């Protein structure tokens, strides 16, 4: 009986099941952690006022509790970095004399120094016509009344960016003509004149911007912190203000959605620890997109050659082994190769051939989205090759034979029978490649990713696609804000949010590819 138990492989079945369960548990736990921490970041927390026994008080959000030396303590985000120089404080539960959640406790999100926690005390609005009345409604009305002016400021800033871009291009044109030996030609003089007039426009705009900003900055609010310390805060520096202790669930949900919107579509603030992730999302997607355009056709063609045209032999087997091993090389090695070959090799040559006038400032001879995409393409191409080869090899030989027997050429067989049938398998490889590329950070760090890119690789300025530009990336963003930011503790929520977002993008891209693959599978399924 016992012997039979072992012979039937019962323990083996249990073992296989246990292995799978363990893997699933770990995966779900990982997802759970990311979700739990990421999804709640933007939900407004109550502000707790701690009155301590030694007479001091703190106003903040309780981040977490733990036991230290058998004593309970709370970690509280007290914000007000400009006042306390610390965002977080550990508070011993035993030293608290009173805890309360005052309704008028206010959270201000500012474009500098992080959040402010305090109480609105008075308003000074020399340039705004806001009706008198209760303080808080007046304050929110004043914030709303700023909107047209802030929009104007943004417009001017955009215009300045455009002017700046045009100036840069003019400078480059002049540099090229000067490099070519032109002195005082009419064209050159014309360019100079244009440059001068642009400079003039630029200066005018800067002056206008400065006066607008100065005017706006005069509108201030006086806030008091938990200890009564006063702080004058210009309204223009307030991004968002709310009183979490006096909000309905709907009001909180509105703040939440507003912040999620900001996350997707706004630029980062405060060295990336606040604000949106739009440039990083955009950079990640564009990177994967360019990478796919490069690696997919290359890999599929190489796979086709290896399986269908190359004569089976020592050399082909060697190539196959090499391709398989290529997929296992640490990605940083690809990064170094990309840096040496693409950036310093090809990029520098391009600069010398086509942009010598700008040297020593590099154009393509420095990291950029094109080189990063190429490096990632190189990294993922083996996966596509292997998948293509395997998908082609899995097609029953009878189908090839019947195609040939009907008088089709190898090319016709390939394009009409084999490739459509192999397409689901090729897609699988492509999905794997995409997922791998989306998660890579190491090779990007040395081929063009930056923590803050001034402009996107795709914009309204001719020629629209700027493949030489540096870019932002969600994966790098996680590393940067999590480990390189000046205020790691404050950046922690953002790390989870970014991770969640990266995960979401990968899942979105791969699942859409999977849907496409299943459609193909249905179409080209062979039942035998």
């Amino acid at each position, binding site marked *: 009986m016992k012997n039979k138990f072992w012979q039937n492989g019962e323990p083996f079945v249990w073992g296989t099941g246990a292995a799978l369960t363990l893997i699933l548990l770990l995966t779900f736990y990982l997802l759970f952690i990311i979700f739990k921490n990421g999804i709640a970041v933007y939900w407004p927390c109550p502000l707790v006022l701690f009155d301590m026994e030694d007479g001091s008080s703190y106003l903040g959000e309780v981040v977490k509790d733990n036991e230290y030396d058998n004593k309970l303590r709370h970690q509280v985000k007290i914000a007000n970095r400009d006042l306390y120089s610390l965002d977080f404080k550990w508070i011993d539960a035993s030293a608290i004399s009173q805890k309360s959640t005052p309704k008028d406790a206010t959270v201000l999100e500012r474009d500098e120094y992080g959040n402010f926690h305090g109480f609105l005390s008075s308003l000074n609005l020399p340039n705004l016509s806001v009706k008198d009345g209760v303080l808080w409604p007046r304050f929110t009305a004043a914030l709303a009344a700023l909107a047209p002016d802030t929009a104007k400021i943004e417009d001017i800033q955009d215009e300045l960016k455009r002017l700046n871009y045009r100036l840069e291009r003019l400078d480059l044109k002049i540099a090229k003509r000067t490099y070519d030996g032109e002195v005082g030609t009419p064209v050159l003089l014309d360019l100079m004149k244009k440059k001068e007039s642009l400079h003039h426009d630029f200066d005018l705009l800067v002056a206008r911007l400065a006066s607008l900003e100065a005017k706006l900055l005069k509108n201030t609010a006086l806030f008091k912190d938990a200890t009564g310390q006063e702080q004058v805060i210009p309204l223009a520096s307030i991004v968002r203000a709310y009183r979490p202790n006096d909000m309905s669930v709907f009001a909180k949900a509105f703040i939440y959605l507003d912040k999620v919107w900001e996350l997707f579509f706004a630029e980062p603030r405060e060295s990336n620890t606040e604000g949106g992730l739009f440039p990083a999302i955009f950079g990640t997607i564009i990177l994967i997109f360019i990478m796919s355009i490069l690696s997919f056709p290359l890999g599929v063609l190489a796979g086709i050659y290896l399986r269908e045209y190359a*004569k*089976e032999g020592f050399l082909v087997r060697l190539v196959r082994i090499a391709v398989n091993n290529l997929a296992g090389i640490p990605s940083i090695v690809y990064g170094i190769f990309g840096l040496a070959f693409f950036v310093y090799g090809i990029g520098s040559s391009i600069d010398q051939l086509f942009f010598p006038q700008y040297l020593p400032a590099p154009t393509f001879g420095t990291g950029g989205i094109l080189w990063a995409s190429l490096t990632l393409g190189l990294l993922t191409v083996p996966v596509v090759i292997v998948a293509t080869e395997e998908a082609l090899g899995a097609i*029953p030989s*009878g*189908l*090839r*034979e*019947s*195609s*040939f*027997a*009907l*008088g*089709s*050429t190898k090319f*016709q067989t390939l394009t*009409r*029978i084999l490739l*459509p*049938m192999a397409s689901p398998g090729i897609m699988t490889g492509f999905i794997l490649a995409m997922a791998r590329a989306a998660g890579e950070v190491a090779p990007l760090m040395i081929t063009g990713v930056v923590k803050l890119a001034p402009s996107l690789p795709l914009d309204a300025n001719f020629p629209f696609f700027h493949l030489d530009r540096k870019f932002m990336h969600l994966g790098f963003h996680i590393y940067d804000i999590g480990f390189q930011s000046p205020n790691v503790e404050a950046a922690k929520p953002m790390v989870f949010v970014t991770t969640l977002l990266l995960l979401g993008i990968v899942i979105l891209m791969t699942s859409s590819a999977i849907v496409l693959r299943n459609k193909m599978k249905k*179409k*080209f*399924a*062979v*039942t*035998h």
Partner: protein
Amino acid sequence: MTMNDPEQAIVAIDDPIVQMEDLCLYYGQAQALFDLTFDIPRHQVTALIGPSGCGKSTFIRCINRMNDLIDGLSTTGSINLDGVNIFDRAVDVIDLRRRVGMVFQKSNPFPKSIYENVIFGMRIGGVSEKPILDETVEKSLRRAALWDEVKDRLHDSAMGLSGGQMQRLCIARAIAVSPEVILMDEPCSALDPRSTAHIEDLIRDLNGEYTIIIVTHNMQQASRISDYTAFLYEGELIEFGHTKKVFTVPVKKATEDYITGRFG
């Protein structure tokens, strides 16, 4: 097995379409076919019988040069199709395969619609006029006795057909390009008796219009559907003649032994 009495064991054909002359075939160094010399009659059904591994399939795959796909395979001698040696450099293998169609042991329709399967040969030949294609589909499917079963779902996937229907579809696909010769490599070996009967009816029906060369392991089938029978043994042609004669009064002892089931 000595080659005594070749005159008697291998009959001559009046109106041959395919003529083998000293056909030898080698897989690398190993010889698989030995000096095959005989003629296939036009518009008749010729059955190839013999024990497994005797070279029947290898032989018929020579006639449309399917063996070109196999590395390290070489042939000597000649196969003449209407007097032209198909191994000649000037012969276009694509053209040859349009003239010599093939149906395989395992039915293998393409994962396309029934319609697209039938016209595959025409499409790759560059025909794209819809009326012609429509007409070919109907004609070929009728010829393959499949039309009535599939006429309402021509644009459904061929993968939804039964095994027997798939094989008839493969025959329809082969007929669609109007070949002169159709090679059949054990077309019924994977089918149930009912489907087999269907295919046999079909082959009898095509007799007189197409030259059919069929490999079969089923003696009854060979005697039922063929006009001529060739018996191959270990790569050599032992006997070739009228089916009736081969099955009733075989010249060679080996033929008799095989047919009566004493070996093979």
